[in-house]
């Protein structure tokens, strides 16, 4: 006890001395530190609060609904005429179908654009095109959804001889457009980060430009490229407005890309508005939100590890 007291005493004496010596510096020095520390703590706490909040709000779901019923049930109908059903599998299937198709449309385009910008285009072309690609990224998804309703859905309906184009395919095409710039831009970064010396060394050995790209640049940038695709996938999964407007949103479990689907994001956005705060339906929507959160978080996390291998 006494030891501690003495130590504390010592400390206070020392800090007093510091204060009296350079008090002005100490205040002007520590004030920003404290201010930034406070803001940072606040921000971090709020951001992590979202995660905890979703989890807590959603966990109540499982007091009344079994895990199996929730995750494996294929019918989502909480406001049913008879007994409500709470299976999110068809919602997840909708999300997965749209995501996979969209990402497989977006990746070839994104990668091509990235290779073109980083390896083939002249610096001048690049200076013009790169910002243009970034501007595609800022097209709001509601605009894409609207254009999808007006133009893409009828087009798809015409091509496949359907009477309407509100289905997973239409949604996937539009979502792919939304994710394209993300993928292209990050792929381009990954390719540009490959050391110029590798290219020069390869070219000096008599390789053609394409061989160099294929054998040297792409393998060297591979982790960044994969990460870009993962980030694109995260963006695709989270896309809400497009799927809300053009995916058809029916309850049936989808069997083909020409079926209408009801992805998780659209379902949450539609239903959360009506439910009574705290009810089972409310909690289950938060659980869906949490599942969505975890899906994107894990995907981004993997992408992040690929980009910043060294950071942890």
């Amino acid at each position, binding site marked *: 006890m006494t030891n501690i007291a003495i130590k504390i005493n010592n400390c206070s004496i020392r800090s007093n001395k510091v204060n009296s010596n350079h008090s002005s510096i100490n205040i002007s020095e520590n004030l920003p530190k404290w201010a930034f520390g406070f803001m940072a703590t606040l921000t971090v706490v709020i951001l992590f609060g979202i995660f905890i909040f979703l989890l807590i709000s959603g966990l109540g779901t499982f007091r009344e609904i079994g895990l199996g019923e929730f995750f494996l049930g294929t019918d989502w109908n909480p406001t049913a005429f008879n007994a409500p059903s709470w299976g999110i599998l068809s919602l997840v299937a909708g999300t997965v179908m749209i995501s996979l198709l969209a990402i497989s449309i977006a990746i070839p385009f994104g990668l091509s654009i990235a290779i073109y910008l980083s390896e083939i285009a002249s610096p001048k072309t690049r200076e013009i095109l790169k910002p243009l690609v970034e501007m595609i990224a800022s097209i709001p998804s509601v605009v894409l959804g609207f254009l999808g309703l007006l133009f893409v859905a009828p087009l798809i309906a015409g091509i496949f001889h359907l009477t309407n184009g509100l289905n997973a395919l239409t949604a996937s095409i539009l979502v792919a457009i939304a994710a394209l710039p993300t993928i292209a831009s990050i792929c381009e970064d990954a390719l540009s980060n490959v050391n110029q010396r590798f290219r020069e060394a390869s070219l000096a050995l008599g390789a053609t430009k394409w061989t160099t790209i294929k054998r040297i640049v792409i393998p060297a940038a591979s982790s960044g490229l994969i990460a870009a695709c993962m980030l694109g996938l995260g963006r695709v999964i989270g896309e809400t407005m497009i799927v809300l407007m053009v995916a058809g949103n029916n309850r049936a479990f989808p069997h083909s890309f020409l079926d209408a689907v009801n992805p998780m994001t659209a379902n949450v956005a539609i239903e959360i508005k009506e439910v009574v705060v705290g009810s089972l339906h409310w909690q289950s929507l938060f659980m869906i939100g949490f599942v969505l959160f975890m899906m994107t978080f894990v995907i*981004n996390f993997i992408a992040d590890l690929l980009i910043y291998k060294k950071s942890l």
Partner: protein
Amino acid sequence: MKIKNITSESIYFSIFHAMTLIGIGLLILTLILLLLSGYSVIDQDFLTRNWQHRDITQGGIFPAILGSLYLGLGVIVISFPLGISTAIFLTEYSKNNLLNRIIQLAIRNLSGVPSVVYGLFGLVVFVNILSFGSSLLSGVLTLSLMTIPWIITASVESFQSVPQKFREASLALGATQWQTIRKVVLPSAITGCITGGIIGVARALGETAPLIMVGATFYLSKLPSSPLDKFMALPYHTFILATQHSSPYANSYAAGTAFVLIMLTFLLSLGAIILRFHFRSKKDW
């Protein structure tokens, strides 16, 4: 062999070239389609008049433009200080230990979390618990939460790209840490933070899902005058016109509104790109 290589190279290169052109073409196509569907309604009245519900041809989308501008301003005011401060603290003040790196990693990942999730949070916390209602304030706070991780990520990157030797040189001249940050680090990094932030705000302005959940408004008799007023916003207005308004001109008006929205986000992104370009050309290290 050589010929084969060259041909395959030219084939691949033309594929890449073509795909790039298609990608860029999509952007231009989007604009053209919007203009084709909406050009008949876009005029000065459309931009400056109050919304007339019964006969939409008599009115304009000024309340929605104003609402979106307020939202953007609010997001800037809230998310810039918080985001940049957090980035400063994480990169300059706190120790570079495991916890710090985990926090940075988590924040980077939060920037990919879907906007509906933020909408859920905003709906409960701001609209219900804090009872701000479906107000401008709730919208601003929700969109800010979504933007903050983007700003932090961009800012942390920007701060980390300032060479360590600048900090050492400044400290060696007898600068305090705060002086070093304020006079050497911040001036070099702030443009990166701001451009990242503006792009974030541009994206936030186009977000509709959180506004659906927080509750943008269909009709307002008066423009919002306080943060607790109801508001209209361009993306939500586009959505409503596209799905719910019975006027035969609704689609044209939706296209016009979408065009204005896109121009707004493009202007912001373009501003950010120009700013970045300007400062990159000045950056010599």
